[in-house]
């Protein structure tokens, strides 16, 4: 079987994440929204969450997507794809001192 080029995977996964964001990002007035990407060292995957919080209230965190292709280069491509199409602030957790393979910048918000 012919291997599917990575770019189409990026588009596929990126669009799925964007669709999930659309579904969960309700734009409730007075509410802060942001994305959290977690380097899950136990399951070897990247977990995406959409968090929201009203002032003085509890934080809510909803799962957005799980990227099971545990490859930083792939993650970087997805982050770039999604980042170009939505303006939510993204936070990263458990990436330590890791650097984006292409941009060669430290992985941080």
């Amino acid at each position: 079987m012919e291997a599917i080029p990575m770019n189409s995977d990026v588009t596929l996964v990126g669009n799925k994440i964007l669709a999930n964001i659309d579904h969960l990002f309700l734009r409730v007035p007075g509410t802060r929204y942001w994305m959290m990407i977690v380097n899950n060292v136990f399951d070897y995957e990247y977990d995406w969450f959409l968090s929201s919080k009203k002032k003085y209230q509890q934080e809510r965190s909803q799962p957005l997507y799980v990227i099971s292709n545990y490859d930083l280069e792939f993650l970087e491509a997805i982050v770039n794809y999604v980042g170009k199409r939505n303006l939510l602030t993204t936070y990263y957790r458990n990436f330590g001192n890791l650097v984006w393979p292409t941009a060669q910048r430290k992985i941080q918000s």
Partner: protein
Amino acid sequence: MDYDEEPHGVYFFIDNKSFYASCESVKRGLNPLRSILVVMSEQANTNGGLILAASPMAKKLFGISNVSRQRDLPNDPRLLIVPPRMNLYIKKNLQINDVFTEFTDENNILPYSIDESLLDMTHTWHLFGNSLRNVALKIQEEVRSRLGLYTTVGIGDNPVQAKIALDVYAKHDSDLVGEIHYKDVPNKIWNIQNLTSVWGIGKRTAANLNHLGIYNMNDLAHANPYLIKEKMGIIGLQLFATAWGIDRSNLRQPMHTKEKSYSNSQVLPRDYTSRSEIEIVIKEVASQVASRIRNHHLQTGWITLFIGFSFATKQVTGSSGFSQSMKINPTDDSYELGRDLTELFERNWNGEMIRNIGVEYVHLSPKVGEQLDLFRDNQRTIKQNVLNKTGDQIRKQFGNAALLNANSLCNGATAISRSNLVGGHNGGNSYE
């Protein structure tokens, strides 16, 4: 007490600390013991939100218990609320049991619930350490380093000792390990003051024991076993044995149930008063259970319908609902079962508001062929049989909501909204 004749083994009862909350913490890169997190189901039938699990820190800071409601949650900005993902917890449970198979063979592992397993370590424990506690610590470390989850271990010479060690002692131990052996029974079982903290004793059983003048485990151990048996039957005698730390169960011996049955029940998203709405749900549940028995090539000859009244109706009538059974000609046909169950409903319902619906099929027999009936159109029966089977195949391949009766689009129907639920809560598949 001479315990020489009693079975002596090495049993580990292992529990995951705040399992659902811990799984969600790990997914978010947080330490399960330090995160302040609650898993809250916000399905329509949870009345605003039901807390399925709270992390140890959330319990400590806010006194949150499982099965609390959203209204019990403090409005504290430190608190993180997350939705449940039942399929994730099932997957994690399998991974944990996989780790256990490295310490004892699969036949000696009894998964007790989604977050508890019983391990018979009699023949293998000495391969992993020089003391039982060390082996328990090793298992804990293995689970923690591979999955990020914290486990609590109860150790005993038999399963009941291990379970009490887990429930009463391990949770308060700094290493999360508790131990009870035959020699510890007077010190560690008889001194338990709260009867309901012991496995097998709920509030009602405790009240029954109280009636017999038994208020703690010491009282139970020194009560008259003949009197207990007379008043509480075999269960009472079993509790008496528990008080003496005695358990003669054999894990390898398969359990044989007297009679197998299949049932499903659901809490409705609101109180239902309309006959047509209630009957749609009855038919949906009837069809769901029918599909399950067909999957096992069985047919039922006895059906039961459970109806639970709404809180308001209970207050007024004092009745919590009704349960009615009916003998029928053995069948596995969704249509016939739905029709018989709605008939049962119509015969017994007097317009009360309803909140719970359950259906059970008993007297199951193997379906070896189609029973034809002189008074029915046999071609139609055969067609219906093929239709049921085709529907089952489609649902098996494409999901429960892939093919439904048109009335599942009517007001009150719940089949579509429940199709992604696991155990009544969000399965979480849509995130992957």
